[in-house]
């Protein structure tokens, strides 16, 4: 197991370095001089030259990259142009909300998806299966931002039950219910399809037939024998789809006006705030790589067969 973990971590290192190179290139390939952008209307040639030197922008690119990496290692992501604050501080403020949103959405998704997926698998090929598969297909196809708007129109504007999003500090935890529901529903559709196919695989196994043959009640076979074994691939695939959820948070946070990482990213691109853009893209992608790594390792811990591949 230890060797497997070490190998997985070593595999992740070039990917992480590649991510940093790509993100570093962002600011250097992007049109426009960062110093000009930073100074805006206070631009002055001699001051700009001094600033360029202070930022190390007159050094070779490779040196700049290493300096930048060293800064990141110290937790210094640079300074935002539009929000007059350190990028690391901004990310620190926004990240918890996004994580809460992502985890809440995944919890809702699994709560909806697992019973539906199990039902579809037991009744494969019959009416309940067709209905839940169609529902999942529709769920996958609805754009998150549109579903979010529909939820706002219905539950917030028409019924007045819940706040139409906003920050948790302002509106309390209720503000996260609709966003989690919007993000969770689209994700539930995916999780349901995985649950169904994973359950179908497990239900064909000999040990399920054995359990039935020795007279274990039908429900018990499904939930205790089959679902337990089907859960490993379900959790793995769901975990590996964390990137989809992160992509979804960008849209959900925009629709519901939630001050999270996704909104920060959109604010950065709208304001052409390259340091902020670099920081948010870097943190989001590294988070994604780390979650994938954790899921891979957990999967191997649960299923010893994986380690020998």
């Amino acid at each position, binding site marked *: 197991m230890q060797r497997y973990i070490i190998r997985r971590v070593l595999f992740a290192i*070039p990917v992480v370095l590649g991510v940093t190179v790509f993100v570093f290139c962002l600011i250097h390939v992007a049109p426009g001089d960062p110093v000009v952008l930073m100074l805006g209307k206070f631009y002055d040639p001699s001051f700009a030259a001094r600033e360029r030197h202070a930022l190390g922008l007159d050094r070779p690119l490779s040196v700049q990259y290493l300096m930048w990496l060293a800064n990141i290692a110290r937790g210094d992501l640079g300074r935002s142009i539009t929000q007059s604050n350190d990028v690391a501080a901004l990310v620190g403020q926004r990240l918890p909300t996004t994580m809460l949103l992502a985890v809440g959405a995944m919890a809702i998704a699994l709560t909806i998806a697992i019973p539906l997926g199990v039902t579809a698998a037991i009744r494969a090929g019959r009416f309940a299966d067709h209905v839940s598969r169609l529902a999942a297909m*529709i769920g996958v*196809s609805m*754009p*998150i931002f549109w579903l979010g708007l529909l939820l706002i129109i219905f539950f917030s504007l028409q019924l007045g039950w819940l706040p139409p999003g906003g920050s948790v500090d302002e509106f309390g935890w209720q503000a996260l219910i609709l966003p989690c529901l919007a993000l969770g529903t689209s994700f539930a559709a995916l999780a349901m399809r995985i649950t169904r196919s994973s359950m179908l695989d497990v239900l064909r196994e000999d040990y399920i037939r054995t359990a039935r043959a020795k007279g274990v009640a039908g429900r018990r076979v499904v939930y205790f024998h089959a679902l337990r074994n089907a859960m490993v691939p379900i959790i793995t695939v769901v975990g590996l789809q964390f990137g989809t959820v992160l*992509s979804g948070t960008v849209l959900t946070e925009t629709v519901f006006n939630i001050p999270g990482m996704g909104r920060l990213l959109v604010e950065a691109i709208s304001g052409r705030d390259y340091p902020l853009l670099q920081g948010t*893209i870097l943190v*989001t*992608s590294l988070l994604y790589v780390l979650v994938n790594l954790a899921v891979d390792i957990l999967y191997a811990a649960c299923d010893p067969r994986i380690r020998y591949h």
Partner: protein
Amino acid sequence: MIVASSYRRWRGFARNAGSIAGGVLVVCLLLLAMLAPVVAPHSMEGMDASARSLPPSAGHWFGTDQFGRDILSRVIYGGRTSLLVGMLSVAAAAAAGISVGMSAAVLGGWWDDVLMRAIDVLMAFPDIVLAIGLIAIVGAHFGDLIFVIAFTRLPDFARMSRAQTLLVQRQEYVAAATAIGSRRFRIMVRHILPNASAPLLVLGSLAMAGAINAEAALSFLGIGVQPPLASWGTMVADGRRFILNAPWMAACPGIAISVAVLAFNLVGDGLRDAFDPRT
């Protein structure tokens, strides 16, 4: 042999109610987009000051917007942009991805390593995050947008075509073609590509759904299709401001996105069921 089995598979596709529904929807959407000037009841930009923000009615099935423009007509015209961006970006992603994947598999060695590690890096970014990063570099004009969406779809095509090529390469007819002295490029195009195409077709259909969704999402965020061009995504974004008084303005183009994405997903799913030997 191959002909017979592929005939059987297409028949399997045609017997699946979902794939038929999806196929019919795709054809209808494409026809609507192509024939927009003929089928749209009103012009796209025609404003009518006396008909501002009207709810759906017999005269305006989807209602009107804040300028009195007919939303149904705008949805039909907007579909041209959305579907065109989708098709062009998937075509570009397929062309680039298949070239990368096949050349990695056929040439192997360090070329394969370099390309696949680069693909790994691209896959380390969540889709929208990668798209936003690329838009920061290239901009958000029509052509740029197609490039950006194609780039986010490219890794799937590269990986799939590499895996398929590695499988097909082991077949005897490839060995035979090599033995009679066919050139590598000819083998790739004449022998490997046709035999690796079924899963790529499935991927293409699902990628089309993904590309339409991505365009809509980026346009909704304000960094996709730029005015005066309108797509379904920009229409939802515009309608969002009037959600309190005229919810149909955002709801109707959203239905169009959902139907289009659903249609391509259904076709892709039907193709997968028909061509995947495991099912």
